[in-house]
C-alpha cells in the first residue's frame, strides 16, 4: 500500500533522493543543496554537509535557524523540499523531551520497534549500559528527568545506530546530571562508534564533546570549526577557551559576554532600596 499524503501521521517514506545505497560507505550523512521551506520561507537553503562514519559533530546556531528541521529530515520524520539528503540506514534519535510511551514500562519502551530475537535481554543490556538496570520495570511517569532521558538513550542504543541524532538532549537537565550525561555519551560513543550529530545551545558542551563544530545560519552551514583536542577535555583549557570566544563571535554574542555583564553590574550605582551589605554578600 502506498502512503496517502493526507495521512495525519506522517508516513515514514524514503524519497528517491535519500536511498541509503547511494551513500559512500565512509559517510554517515551526505547533504547536497538541501532546501526545506515552509510556505515561502526557506528554513534550510542550499545546505551542504558531510558527516563521516564514527564522527562526533556538534551543531550550533541561533534559535529558529533550522537545527531541529535538519535533524527531523535526518531522522526521517520530515522530508526536504529539494536537494539530496542521504544518510546511513540505521538511525536513532534522542530529543529534548524523552518521548517515552507512558503506558509501557521502561524496558518495553527500549524494545519498542526492535525486530530481533531475545528482545528483553537486549533491552535490559541497553538499560544496563546507561546505568538503569534496576529501573527496567518502572513506569516512565515515575522516572526522574535524567533517568527518562537515559531510557531514551538506551532506546536509541539498542538499535545499534550508525547515525545517532541528538536534539538538545541535555537541555532540560540540571547542571550536574548534564555533566554525567556528557561522560555517558562520550563513553557510549567511544564504545559503539556511531556518527553523532548533536544539536546544542551550549558552546561548552559542543567543545567538550565534538570533533567538529558547525554553525548553522541562513539555512546553510555558515562556519565549521575542527575540534580535535585530545580527550578527556576540560573547559578551562586555554585552547578551548580561544575556540569558545571564536564560536561566540560567530553566533553573534559579544566577546567575553559574561565578563562584560559582571563588570557592568559592579559599576552600577547603589540605590537606596538595595542595602549595601546585601550587595557585598
Amino acid at each position: 500500500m502506498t502512503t496517502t499524503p493526507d495521512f495525519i501521521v506522517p508516513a515514514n517514506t524514503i524519497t528517491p533522493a535519500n536511498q541509503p545505497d547511494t551513500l559512500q560507505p565512509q559517510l554517515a550523512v551526505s547533504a547536497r543543496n538541501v532546501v526545506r521551506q515552509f510556505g515561502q520561507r526557506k528554513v534550510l537553503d542550499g545546505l551542504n554537509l558531510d558527516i563521516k562514519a564514527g564522527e562526533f559533530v556538534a551543531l550550533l546556531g541561533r534559535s529558529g535557524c533550522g537545527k531541529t528541521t535538519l535533524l527531523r529530515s535526518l531522522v526521517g520524520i520530515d522530508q526536504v523540499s529539494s536537494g539530496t539528503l542521504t544518510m546511513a540506514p540505521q538511525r536513532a534519535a534522542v530529543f529534548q523531551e524523552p518521548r517515552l510511551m507512558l503506558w509501557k514500562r521502561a524496558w518495553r519502551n527500549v524494545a519498542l520497534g526492535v525486530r530481533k530475537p531475545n528482545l528483553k535481554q537486549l533491552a535490559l543490556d541497553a538499560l544496563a549500559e546507561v546505568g538503569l538496570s534496576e529501573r527496567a520495570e518502572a513506569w516512565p511517569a515515575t522516572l526522574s528527568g535524567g533517568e527518562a532521558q537515559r531510557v531514551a538513550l538506551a532506546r536509541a542504543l539498542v538499535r545499534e545506530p550508525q547515525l545517532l541524532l541528538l536534539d538538545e538532549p541535555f537541555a532540560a537537565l540540571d547542571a550536574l546530571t548534564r555533566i554525567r550525561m556528557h561522560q555517558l555519551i562520550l563513553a557510549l560513543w567511544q564504545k559503539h562508534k556511531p556518527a553523532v550529530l548533536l544539536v546544542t545551545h551550549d558552546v561548552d558542551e559542543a567543545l567538550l564533546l565534538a570533533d567538529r563544530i558547525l554553525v548553522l545560519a541562513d539555512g546553510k552551514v555558515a562556519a565549521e570549526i575542527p575540534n580535535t583536542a585530545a580527550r578527556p577535555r576540560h573547559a578551562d583549557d586555554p585552547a578551548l577557551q580561544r575556540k569558545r570566544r571564536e564560536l561566540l563571535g560567530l553566533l553573534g554574542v559579544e566577546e567575553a559576554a559574561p565578563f562584560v555583564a559582571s563588570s557592568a553590574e559592579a559599576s552600577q550605582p547603589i540605590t537606596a532600596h538595595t542595602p549595601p551589605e546585601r550587595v557585598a554578600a
Partner: protein
Amino acid sequence: MSLSLPQTGLPNSSAAPRWRIQARHFSGLSRFASPLVLLVIWEVASRTGLLPAHIIAAPTSIVSTFADMVASGELPRHLWVSLARVAKGLALSITLGTVLALVAGLSRKGELIVDAPLQMLRTLPFLALVPLFILWFGIGEAPKLALITFGTIFPVYLNLYSGIRSIDSKLIEAGISLGLSRSELITHVILPGALPSFLVGLRYALGIGWLSLVVVEQINATEGIGYLVGSARDFMRTDIIVVCLLVYSLLGLLTDALVRLIERHALAWRPSFLRS
C-alpha cells in the same frame, strides 16, 4: 514569635476533629432516619389498605418478591438475557466505534467522510428510532441489538476520536523514528494513548446500554429485565416492577465499579494512579 503560633493552635486543632467525628456520626444517622421513617409509613399505608398494591406494593412484599425471583432463578435468567444483549450491542458498537474513530482520527479524508455524518446522527434521540428500526429489522433480536449499538456507538466514537486527536504528535513521531509500521503505531502508540478517553466513553456507553434495555425489551420480547417490567405491568405486579427498577440502578452502580476496575489495571501507568 512564630514559635508561639503552633503552640496556641495545638489544643484547638486536637479538639476540632473529635467534634467533627461526632457531627459526622450524627449526620450519618439522620441521613438514614428520614428514608426509614418513610419506609415505615409506606409499609403501614400498604398494610392498612390506604396504598393499594396496584399503585405500589409494600416494601416487605417487594423484598420477598425479590427473594422469590432470585430463588426460582427467574430474575437471574432474565438478567442474563439482558446482560447478553447489552454485551453484544456493546461489542458491536465498540468494534465499529473504534474503527470509525481510527479512520476519522488518523486521516483528514476520513475525518471528512466519517465525522460530519456521525456528528449529525448524534443529535438524533436514538430511542425515537424504534419504529424505524422495527420496520428495517423486524421484531426479533436484530432491532434490539441495532438500537443498543446505535445508542452506545456515539460515546465510544466521540471519546476515542478526541483521545486519538489529543495524542502528542511527538510521540507519534517517536514511534515513526523507532521504525514502527502503521499498524504497530496504532496498537502501541495511538490506541494505548487514547485509552483513558476511551474508558470515559465506555462508562457513558454502558449507562446508555442499560437505559436502552428499558425500551428495547418492550419490543416483542419474551425474556429480559425490560420484558419482566412489561409483563408485570400487564398483571399490575408493582412489586416486580420495583424489583426491576432496583436491578437497573444496581447495574448502573456495577458499571461504575467495573469501569473503575478496568481503569485501575489498564491505566496503572498514569501518574494519578501511580501516586495513589
